[in-house]
């Protein structure tokens, strides 16, 4: 019988909370011929010193067993060795892998945006402090009615790629214009936790892209603007054109250090908008953004600047 199978380590739990105690026992079978009757069992954590166990005893059938309790396991991962002295050398009988970490904290700051280009709902969250253990995150959701008190069909779990804190629910799993309940579940060997729940209609969290803003070119059929005025036109972002939107314009004289002047409540499409009150000698920076009107929605970012 080979020496290694002479001894065997058992541990109280393969994974413990970081800093918690862990108890291990190493037992040597009596028919291990190479050893004398009362072999001295020693322990070693990682590359620390060899040490005696808390207690070594002879069990029925002649089994020798040493037990040790490590009061605070502060390694997130460590090897525990069981040795026996053979002549003037120490022989490893067995090795156990110890792991320690934390149960997952509640994922926080869960938010979702509907991407109209890919028609998918992308949710992101903050995973919380490091757990030092393999931890799985799952975006869970249910279709619902009205204010999400009553849940209906479950939606397929969305599992993010390793290490990522966002997940994309594809269009075919979404029921647009109806509320759904969404939350994140985090799980590892030490426990499970869940984020707060969101109740949202994907179409109420559309990520709107800014409109396209142009200056109207002078042409025979376009009356040139009065002094101190500009002709502008704009169009909403194409994938969102089915949505009623309201827009706002802001402009600022370049290098003037003056704050932006804002023109609110503009329609989503402007064919010919005359902007006046400008100084003729100055160059102006203009930007525009839009938001869904009459229904919930987020402002788009400001459009790229137009210099005129």
């Amino acid at each position, binding site marked *: 019988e080979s020496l290694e199978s002479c001894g065997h380590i058992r541990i109280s739990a393969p994974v413990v909370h970081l800093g918690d105690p862990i108890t291990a026992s190493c037992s040597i079978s009596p028919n291990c011929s190479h050893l004398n009757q009362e072999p001295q069992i020693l322990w070693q954590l990682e590359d620390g010193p060899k040490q005696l166990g808390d207690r070594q005893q002879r069990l029925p059938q002649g089994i020798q067993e040493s037990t040790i309790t490590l009061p605070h396991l502060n390694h997130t991962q460590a090897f525990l060795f069981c040795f026996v002295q053979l002549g003037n050398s120490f022989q490893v009988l067995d090795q156990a892998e110890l792991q320690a970490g934390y149960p997952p904290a509640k994922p926080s700051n869960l938010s979702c945006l509907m991407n109209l280009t890919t028609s998918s709902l992308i949710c992101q969250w903050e995973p919380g402090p490091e757990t030092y253990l393999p931890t799985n995150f799952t975006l869970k959701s249910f279709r619902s009615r009205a204010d999400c008190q009553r849940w209906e069909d479950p939606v397929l779990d969305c599992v993010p790629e390793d290490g990522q804190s966002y997940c994309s629910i594809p269009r075919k799993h979404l029921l647009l214009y*109806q509320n759904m309940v969404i939350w994140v579940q985090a799980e590892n060997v030490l426990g499970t936790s869940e984020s707060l729940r969101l109740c949202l209609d994907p179409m109420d969290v559309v990520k709107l892209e800014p409109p396209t803003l142009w200056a109207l070119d002078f042409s025979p059929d376009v009356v040139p603007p009065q002094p101190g005025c500009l002709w502008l036109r704009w169009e909403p972002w194409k994938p969102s054109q*089915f949505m009623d939107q309201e827009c706002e314009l802001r402009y600022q004289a370049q290098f003037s250090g003056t704050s932006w002047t804002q023109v609110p409540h503009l329609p989503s499409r402007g064919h010919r908008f005359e902007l006046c009150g400008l100084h003729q000698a100055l160059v102006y920076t203009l930007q525009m953004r839009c938001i869904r009107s009459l229904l919930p929605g987020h402002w788009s970012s400001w459009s790229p600047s137009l210099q005129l």
Partner: protein
Amino acid sequence: PLPLPKSFLLKSLEQVRKIQAKDEVLLEQLCATYKLCHPEELALLGHSLGIPQAPLSSCSSQALQLRSCLRQLHSGLLLYKGLLQALAGISPELALTLDMLQLDVTNFATTIWQQMENLGVAPAVQPTQNTMPTFASAFQRRAGGVLATSHLQDFLGMAYRALRHFAQ
């Protein structure tokens, strides 16, 4: 008359516009890909293929009745959902547009159905799917696609007018 919540009307109007836009894209793709650009020239074929058109008589301004208009709207959406399903496999290029259109039509049908339930005017059992036409050739499937998509556009136009009327 039964009150329709403003959010339902606003969302429904937006859903109609969303479907109309996608339906228009499908029509353009069918025209560009197969040069089938005039649905009116396919009326005879449509008749022989049995391509159905969903009635919206209770949604017309002359005879507007909320309860049966919602029912016709819901049944019509189920009909077009079925027609779009029958077109599956028409071509890889159109598959994505067709899938998205079908999902939008299905979701709009759910919006209508849930509002009917909220108003207590939903039939006890959801209407079942009509029998769908079968296509004997790729051409018939394409022509059926143009007709179904065109009929859906007309249907959505009437639905939009009715919803606008309810919203006033």
